[in-house]
């Protein structure tokens, strides 16, 4: 009986499913469209004559002899050395995440356990800095970066990205640490740990989902950053997002726009893998408050 009731399609259920389906379609469409289009030539994907060309691939067939082509990918990765931008992004992302997580966990732990009132004001200041537009951290220092001769290189960008990201990691990890009862550290300290051992052996393992979640958000910030990278990096050190932007800017050469489309799809792929891989930790990270002493 109960099973029957569960499977029966009520109008309300039908409506809900339709709404979810509709939302999914709207949300996923740009990705799917770009993914589909990345295997076409520019004349199809950006056709002025008939948008259905992008679906049918009329010009793609004419130009390449097949309805699907890897030209965009070949152009981006081989002709334009997109892998080089990818390497730069990897370096920037890796160091940004590692540095901000290191300071974030240590600082967040210290602030969460500190009984002093200044901890609150430090966090408030962090929130203000977080709300600041990213560009302020760049424009103010741009002159000095030139004078010190550190403009255009990756470490400068990493430092600026860490500065932008740090308040957020500090804030987020602080609230994760707050959820872990103080008794845990104290118990570990009575059991024979120093403060740091208690942190490493007892608190961090429990905190792991929180660290992963925060790390993921830091990753996304550094990975998707445009403002900082475009202002601070010279052409030979460009990361992927400015690179995609410069593909888009060169409309004079037929087909280059398709490099951008292919590059966008290439840049999205790792994100999917990453989120799927850490999915479980992210979910438990968001419910880390359920940790019981």
């Amino acid at each position, binding site marked *: 009986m109960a099973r029957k009731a569960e499977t029966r399609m009520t109008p309300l259920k039908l409506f809900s499913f339709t709404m979810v389906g509709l939302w999914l379609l709207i949300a996923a469409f740009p990705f799917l469209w770009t993914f589909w289009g990345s295997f076409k030539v520019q004349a199809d994907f950006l056709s002025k004559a008939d948008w259905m060309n992008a679906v049918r691939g009329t010009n793609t067939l004419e130009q390449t002899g097949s309805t699907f082509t890897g030209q965009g990918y070949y152009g981006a990765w081989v002709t334009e050395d997109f892998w080089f931008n990818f390497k730069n992004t990897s370096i920037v992302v890796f160091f940004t995440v590692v540095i901000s997580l290191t300071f974030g966990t240590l600082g967040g732990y210290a602030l969460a356990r500190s009984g002093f009132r200044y901890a609150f004001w430090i966090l408030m200041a962090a929130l203000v800095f977080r709300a600041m537009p990213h560009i302020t951290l760049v424009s103010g220092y741009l002159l000095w970066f030139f004078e010190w001769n550190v403009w255009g290189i990756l470490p400068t960008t990493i430092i600026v990205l860490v500065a932008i990201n740090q308040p957020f990691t500090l804030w987020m990890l602080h609230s994760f640490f707050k959820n872990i009862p103080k008794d845990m550290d*104290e118990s*570990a*300290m*009575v059991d024979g740990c120093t403060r740091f051992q208690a942190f490493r052996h007892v608190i961090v*393992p429990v905190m792991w989902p929180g660290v992963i979640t925060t790390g993921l958000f830091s990753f996304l910030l550094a990975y998707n950053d445009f403002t900082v990278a475009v202002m601070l990096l010279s052409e030979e050190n460009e990361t992927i997002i400015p690179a995609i932007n410069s593909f888009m800017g060169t409309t004079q050469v037929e087909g280059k726009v398709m490099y951008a489309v292919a590059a966008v799809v290439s840049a999205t792929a790792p994100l999917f893998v990453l989120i799927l891989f850490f999915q479980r930790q992210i979910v438990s990270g968001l419910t880390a408050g359920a940790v019981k*002493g």
Partner: protein
Amino acid sequence: MAEIQLRNIGKRWGSFIGVDNFDLKIADKEFLVLLGPSGCGKTTTMRMIAGLEDASEGDILIDGLRVNEMEPKDRDVAMVFQSYALYPNMNVYENIRFPLKVRGVDPNIHDEKVRRASAMVELDDFLHRKPAELSGGQRQRVALARAIVREPNVFLMDEPLSNLDAKLRVSTRAQIKNLSHELAVTTIYVTHDQIEAMTLADRVVIMKQGVVQQVGSPVEIYDSPANAFVASFIGNPAMNLMDGDMSGGTFRAQHVDVPGLSAPDGKVTLGFRAEDANVVEIGGQINAPIYTMELLGDATMVSVRIGGALVSVKADKSYRAEIGEIVSINVAPEHFHLFDQKSGARIGN
């Protein structure tokens, strides 16, 4: 083997006094209970001994050695927390083993020690489980096993039973008493439950607002409370206390007339315990209308109101009367306790 000496220790946060001038010597193998209402400084005192809180003044000595500046890990104490504070990412076995591991005890004897400790608290069948898969009582026993596994000098227990249900509390209490006897280790036990204090302690320290009120064996504290606060805190029900006037050896209050007491004239508080009083036909020292009657099973609790206070007496279980009827209560003179009404200090019995 450890004797603990607390020499006039105190704890202040700004102008707030957490613990004031606590001075006590705790003998080796003694079971000492710190008892008091919440916020009385009992847990702070224990945390100072553990090293989790710095003493603002005074010296803490363990076996004659001053430990004020020592880290908790160097004091060789083991502590059971009110929340148990188990490590959720480790199973029961690893939880119990943790102190051995971080202290660098020879790994070859870990297994033997963990199994001995877990057997003592009857956890053998749960060693592979994670704390989240255990009941409250089992978690509590893991915390106990983790404390006893490395045979520390001193046990500290911070309200270990307060998160358990009433039935489990009684059996775990018995287990703790048995364990402490078996292990013969100096134990300091913090509780707000006077029954736990009475049943477990060799000596009880009663605290109120950071100040020690009385130190003594459970019997001493029960039979001759040092002040009205202790009297009202110990016993179930607590001691009956009535405010009144003393003149010429006779205590008088509304409905009350107790002659034959030896105390100076003035405002006093008279106390007696419910089980020391009898309900009589006529001619008792207290004659008042019944306020309420409660059947306890083995007795009937009869209560009257004297001034603002409720005074309860245990009558025979077959005793029956109507609310509002006048009841006459008699107490043998030696069972009276007299306290100064202002200071609460004991002035005689």
